């Protein structure tokens, strides 16, 4: 009888702990700083590096023996995408099949203090959408093998430096101070980026924090992009005027050189 009571207590203990976490503020919370909260894409933009640093604030005693782990992710604005597959038709390689993906982040980097599988369970990953395959939402229909297309997105964007898995790159000191740096590539899409920080113990998320990073084209880049999309006719005519002026002045300059 005693033994049964003990088993019951052991089984209920984590549940009680979990309920407590959901109801009240967790014993550990995150204080975060970013090296920059906005990224300006200028004409000579050549990528950027974001430093994420912070500290763990403890308001109560920590349960359990599991060490603290930190996961930091930076996510670009999600956009729909069309993924196409090539195959050989009539001896030529051409697009034969396409799948519409509802939303895939244009940029995604995830940095951790240890190998990914050691810091979080797959259930928790599914719930918070932390790993790259989880961050790509809802693959649409159009193929018998949608998984191939999702993998292709990850492969292509990883090769382009747009998706990054950075295991063991978050430095954690004394279970309190953490920092990492994440490189944003030059071929960045503008929009609202989001940095998320998760604390885990025993592969369960104990606390999380979200910060916004604004990525915007500025100056001439902004002007040209806005003009092209909001006043396309004016933009088109302006492009022609520039082209004709350049053509005319080149001819005039070289005529002047020749006449001297």
């Amino acid at each position: 009888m005693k033994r049964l009571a003990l088993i019951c207590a052991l089984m209920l203990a984590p549940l009680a702990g979990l309920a407590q976490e959901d109801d009240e503020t967790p014993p550990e919370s995150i204080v975060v700083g970013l090296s920059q909260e906005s990224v300006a894409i200028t004409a000579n933009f050549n990528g950027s590096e974001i430093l994420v640093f912070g500290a763990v604030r403890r308001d109560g005693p920590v349960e359990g023996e599991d060490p603290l782990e930190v996961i930091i992710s930076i996510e670009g604005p999600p956009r729909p995408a069309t993924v196409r597959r090539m195959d050989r038709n009539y001896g030529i390689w051409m697009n034969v099949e396409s799948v519409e993906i509802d939303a895939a982040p244009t940029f995604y980097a995830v940095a951790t203090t240890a190998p990914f599988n050691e810091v979080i369970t797959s259930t928790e990953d599914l719930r918070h959408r932390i790993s790259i395959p989880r961050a790509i939402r809802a693959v649409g229909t159009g193929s018998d093998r949608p998984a191939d297309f999702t993998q292709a997105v990850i492969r292509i964007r990883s090769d382009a430096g747009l998706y990054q898995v950075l295991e063991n790159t978050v430095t954690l000191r004394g279970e309190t101070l953490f920092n990492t740096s994440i490189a944003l590539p030059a071929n960045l899409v503008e929009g609202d980026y989001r940095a998320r920080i998760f604390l885990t113990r025993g592969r369960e998320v104990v606390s999380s924090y979200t910060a916004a990073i604004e990525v915007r084209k500025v100056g001439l880049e902004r002007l040209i992009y806005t003009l092209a999309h909001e006043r396309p006719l004016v933009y088109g005519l302006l492009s022609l005027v520039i082209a004709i002026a350049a053509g005319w002045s080149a001819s005039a300059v070289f005529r002047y050189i020749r006449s001297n």
Partner: protein
Amino acid sequence: MLIYLPIAEVSVNAFLLLGLGGLVGILSGMFGVGGGFLMTPLLFFIGIPPAVAVATEANQIVASSFSGVLAHFKRKTVDLKMGGVLLVGGLIGAALGVQLFNALRAIGQVDLLVKLSYVVFLGIIGALMFVESLNAIAKSRKASGPPPRRHHRGWIHALPFKTRFRTSGLYLSVIPPLLVGVAVGVLAAIMGVGGGFIMVPAMIYILGMPTKVVVGTSLFQIIFVTAFSTLLHATTNFTVDMVLAVLLLVGGVVGAQVGARIGVYLKAEQLRILLAIMVLAVCGKLAFDLLVQPAELFSIGMEGSH
């Protein structure tokens, strides 16, 4: 120096673009062609999205053609009436071409269409030029016989709506130039080229125009057709990148003048055989890419975001 292109949304080395513009400019100055058929594939190779490359190249051709046509106006080697007829055809063709381009873009076959067009047209033109210039070299070595007379094509003269083209010295139906114009307009919109490399042979061999007015008239017509397709691309696809166009045309107009000087030192047959080899090389590279299994079978399109 890397520069971020606002429409293409990629970072490219500005000097690479200036250099490409210059290189293609030199070639176009040497051979008297617009160079669009070389520049657009080169832009594909350095990673500019095909839709942006095609639209922007059309804009750049406006600049180089305008620069070229001014010289021809001075020499009075532009047949405005013929140019006008070709232009009407060209505008119809460009409108059709952009429609076709957008329809194929929606079903994901635009890259294939652009590349196939390149392979077919570069292959035909390159091969014809190669054979023709080899013959010319062989002939000039043997003896300087009388030039072969061009025989008149009966069916062209049987067509209605005949009119007189004074500068070209032709009495011809408007239908053949109109059709040539439409064909070149479609190509200009799809391939991002002026179409000079198709137009010039068509004017000489199909319409029978005298060679001295061919280049000026073709340039005159190309300005308007490429300007029109630039506008269509800018308003329907938002794919004209002004920064890219400026970098290319600065290199291009300087290169064209340098190329014209180099051209003086080479014989016409040598020039043509070099151009033919170059055209065939570009064609071969594109054909190779279509026939050999690519390393990555999947591609991501972002059409949904625009």
